[in-house]
Each structure stands twice: as C-alpha cells, then as structure tokens.
C-alpha cells in the first residue's frame, strides 16, 4: 500500500459519515438510533403552511379568529410530534390551559423514530381535521398528495418498521391534539362564524354594520379558552376614549385624524394599506400573512426541523391568544367604526380606502396579532432588540412589491398604521392593540418553558 495515510483518512471519513446521531434527551431518555430533529431539513413542514394558506382562502367560514385557531392547533401537532427529538422537557402538555401533563402519547423508550416522518404524519392529519367538514375536494387531495410526496422523500433509507412506528406516533399526536381542541369553544366554529343568534347592543357609540355583512363576526370568541394559563385580562388595553360628539373630545379628535389622513394619503400610504389588507376576498387572513412572513424567514435561514416546528408553535400559540384577547375587548367595548362616526358627525360622504371589516373597532385585530408576532419574531431571530433585516415576499403572489424593514418593530408599526391610513381604525385601536399584542407575545415567550438554544 503506497499511501496508507490516505486509506486511513478516507476510512475515517466513511465511518464518520455513516455514524447515526443518537438522540439523548435532557433527562437521559434515549430513543436509540433516532436522529435528532435538528438533523432534518424543515422545508417540508414549511410547505404545509403554504398549503394551509391556500386552504384557509378556499374554505368557507374561515374568518381571522377561525384561521388563527386552525394555524395554532396545526403548529402544536407538528411541534409535539417532533419534540421528543428536540428535548424531553419541551412538551406543551402540562403548560397549556386544559392540556394536562401526560395527556399526550409518548414514543416508546428504546425504539427508533424518525421525527420528520412523525411530524409529516401529524401535520397533514391535523390540517385535515381543522378544515374537515368544509374543505374542498381539491384541497383535500392536495393534502394527501403533499403528505405522500413528503413521506416518499423522507423515507429514503429508513426501515419499514421505523416508518410505520413514526407515522403511527405522529397520527396519534394529531388525534390527541384534535381532542384537546374540541373543548376550547372554537370547535368547528367555521360552520357558524357569526355565532347567531346574537343581539347587537344599541347606543350612539355602538358598532353598526358598515358593509355587506350585517352580523358581526364571532361575537362570543372572547370566551374561548386561551393557551396561556395566565389571566388573559391582564393584557387588556385601557378603556377606549369616552364617547362624545364634542369637537374637543378625544374620540372626535381621533376621528378627525382618520378623516384628514384618508383625504391626504400619499401613494405610498395607500400601497401600505393595501399591502396589509391581505386582499379583499381570498385572503389567508392576518395570521396567515404573519405565518407567511415567518416561513420566508425560516426559508432564508434554511431552518432545520427543530427550529421550524418550534417557531411555528410559538407563533401559532401567540396568534390564537391574540385573537381571543382582541375579540374579548372588541365585544366588551363594541365601539363603532371611524366611518360610522365620521359619516354621522363630520362628513356624510366620507368613504374608506378599503372595506371596513364586519366587527367592532376597539382594538384592531391586525395590531394585536402583529404585536404578538413582533414579540415572537424578536425572540426567535434577535438577541432581544428586534433589529433584523426583514423582507416580506409573501405578497408578491398577489402582485405587490417586496417590502423590507430594518426591525420587527418597524414592520409591526407599519402594519398597525395601515389600518389608520385605510380609514378603518382610530389611532387608539392601533396603538393600544399593538401594545396588547406585544404583552401576549411576551407571555408566550416567557410563561412556557420552550426548549432553549435551538
């Protein structure tokens, strides 16, 4: 042998590359020969969120609250089916309202699992269940196709018994999370998004219909069970400005600001309004938009499976709670929209830039959800200062330009301001909504023991 050292190096390389990562969890549990979740590419999970956006758009009854809920449970199922491959103490069981410790299926110690295959099974199954009754045939087929396609690529080189065991674990997680979802107050709410019968409160300051939909969306949504165990009322914004038609009152001044703004919007402000409007008909709602931004950031960083499922679970939990808290406030206050106030007391011919959504004004749903998103993005991608070059390419599909910001705060503020430029929210709705959302996001970051250093 002329070059023995070459032979040794090559042999070592081969041995090293063939070694399997052993997944040892924090408490010493071992899933022998199971590769950790971080060793898989997370792109296949992100493809499910692209599909979910499309399904939200095409399924009747998915208004913003319903969509936020569906995304949340999908993200929890994805996470729980991969978390044994991340950390033994990372499960949300025992940490979320109504999800007791030990209530979720566990993988069998000593058995080998493939966490990518298990999360593929859990995610596809959970999407089916979240849209089950109203889903179109085409979308149901799209879920089947994506699951099969992912399974096929993830199964290369994996033994049949590992595939079967991992899939069964993933499906059992989806079934358990689905059962958990049935008791939160929003179960199959897409079949009755207006929660009728509902009697509209009356009074000069009270919400009245402003467009084609005469019943407000989901007036009882605020009574749903949030995920975070802390009192959701602790994030409540201050009471809205007292109603008055006096031109020196805070609410009159706020309405006048909307009126003047809409009259003098720049082209850029109108672009911003429409960019964040999430298009008038087939939108995957504000939550879908925020998750699309998250998907883009995860794509850009080529995030692995662990980081991907963790990020979506963070965001899903926060978005769900943001909508519950926001809706609770909306219907407690039941404040009329700026267009109603302005038409009555300032200018009867005033119209908004985009259609006013069919629910009360205080606080703004977009602002609360992006505020919560801001806190989650900041925790996931920065050292806490929120400074990060954010680019949103998710709206290009609708013909919008790419938009970029220097920080998550800047992005969130623009989103909240867009509702003011559009004439559909008072400034108080956006300002206090954004603050409320940030508190909710911070609670999700701090009150749940998430796996660290992922």
């Amino acid at each position, binding site marked *: 042998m002329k070059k023995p050292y070459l032979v040794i190096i090559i042999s070592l390389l081969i041995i090293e590359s063939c070694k399997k990562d052993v997944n040892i969890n924090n408490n010493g549990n071992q899933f022998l020969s199971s590769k950790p979740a971080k060793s898989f590419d997370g792109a296949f999970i992100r493809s499910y969120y692209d599909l979910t956006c499309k399904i939200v758009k095409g399924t009747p009854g998915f208004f913003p609250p319903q969509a936020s809920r569906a995304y949340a449970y999908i993200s929890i199922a994805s996470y729980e089916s991969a978390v044994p491959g991340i950390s033994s103490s990372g499960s949300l069981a025992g940490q979320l309202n109504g999800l007791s410790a030990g209530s979720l299926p566990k993988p069998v110690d000593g058995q080998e699992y493939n966490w990518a295959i298990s999360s593929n099974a859990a995610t596809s199954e959970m999407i089916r269940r979240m849209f089950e009754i109203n889903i179109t045939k085409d979308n149901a087929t799209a879920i089947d196709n994506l699951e099969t396609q992912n399974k096929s690529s993830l199964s290369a080189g994996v033994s049949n018994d590992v595939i079967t065991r991992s899939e069964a674990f993933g499906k059992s997680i989806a079934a358990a999370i689905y059962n958990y979802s049935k008791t939160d107050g929003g179960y199959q709410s897409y079949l009755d998004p207006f929660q009728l019968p509902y009697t509209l409160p009356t009074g000069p300051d009270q919400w009245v219909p402003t467009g084609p939909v005469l019943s407000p969306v989901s007036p009882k949504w605020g009574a749903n069970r949030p995920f975070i165990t802390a009192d959701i009322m602790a994030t409540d914004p201050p009471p809205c400005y007292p109603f008055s038609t006096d031109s020196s009152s805070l609410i009159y001044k706020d309405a006048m600001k909307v009126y003047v703004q809409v009259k003098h919007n720049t*082209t850029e402000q109108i672009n911003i309004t429409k960019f964040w409007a999430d298009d008038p008909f087939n939108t995957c709602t504000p939550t879908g938009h925020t998750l699309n931004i998250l998907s883009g950031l995860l794509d*850009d960083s080529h995030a692995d499976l662990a980081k991907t499922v963790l990020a979506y679970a963070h965001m899903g939990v926060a978005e769900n709670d943001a909508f519950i808290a926001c809706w609770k406030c909306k219907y407690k206050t039941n404040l009329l929209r700026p267009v109603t106030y302005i038409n009555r007391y300032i200018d009867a011919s005033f119209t908004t830039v*985009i259609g006013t959504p069919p629910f009360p004004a205080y606080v703004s749903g977009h602002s609360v959800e992006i505020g919560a998103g801001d806190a989650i993005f900041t925790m996931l991608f920065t050292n806490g200062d929120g400074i990060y070059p954010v680019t949103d390419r998710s709206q290009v599909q609708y*013909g919008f330009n790419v938009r970029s910001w220097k920080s998550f705060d800047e992005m969130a503020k623009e989103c909240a301001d867009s509702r003011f430029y559009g004439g559909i929210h008072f400034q108080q709705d956006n300002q206090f909504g954004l603050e409320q959302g940030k508190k909710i996001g911070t609670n999700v970051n701090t009150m749940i023991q998430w796996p660290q250093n992922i």
Partner: protein
Amino acid sequence: MAAKHIKAINKAGSILLFAFFLSACHQKKQQDADPQQDAMKLAKLVCESRELTHEKFTLAQKYQQLNSTNKIHISYRNADSTPIKLNKVKLDKEKELLIKMSQAKSDSVNHFLKMLWVTKYQTNEQKQQLDDAMTAELKKQCPLAAP
C-alpha cells in the same frame, strides 16, 4: 482479503469523487443564477397577478357601494328580484370567477418564487439582487402600479 479492502476503498473513493462532483455542479448552478433573466420572467407572472388583485379591489368597492343602502341582506334573504338582489348575484358570480383565476395565478407565482428563493438564490446578497431586479422589472413591465 487485501484485495477486498482495496476494492472497498476504491468504491469509497469513487463515492467521494462523485460527491465532490455534485458539490461543484451545485456551486456552478448557483453561479449560473441570473437575477436579470429570472426577474424578467417573474415580473411577467407578477404583473398578471397584479391585474387580478386590482380587479378584486375594484369589485370590493362595488360591493361596498351596493351595500351602502344596507338593504342587500334583506332582499337577498327574501330571494326576491329587486335590482339589488340581481346586482348581488352578478357580483357574486364575478367574484367566484375572479377568486379562481387569482388563486391559479398565485399558485404559479408562488411555485416560481419558491424555486428561485429557496433553491436557486441561496445567499441574502443574491436574494437582494433578485429583489432589486424584480422591482425594476415590475416598473418596466407592469401597466398597473402595485395594488
């Protein structure tokens, strides 16, 4: 026995060489990324999608005007043939078609976008180049401004 080992090592060497070859091809593919050319193709699709989104905003305005009387819900429920009801039915049909066309266009834009941003353009610098080229192309190619 020695011959067997040499054979195995040769095989491993071939695998390594093949891996190097693949890696080189991948780098070459990334070098081949042509932001100008890709941006031109992408902008064509995005412009078509933009037109549909403009139509959606216009249609949404029509709904707002139609319903400003707040009578539509009542007439629709009564299933009579008032002009409001007939207009609503007409708009609903237009909306249904528009949503289908728009979704199909979104799908094709997204498919192409993913291919570029996830597979072909790997670094932030490359992505930025593509973003800039696309913004310029949209200005050049699209008859309509951003919605």
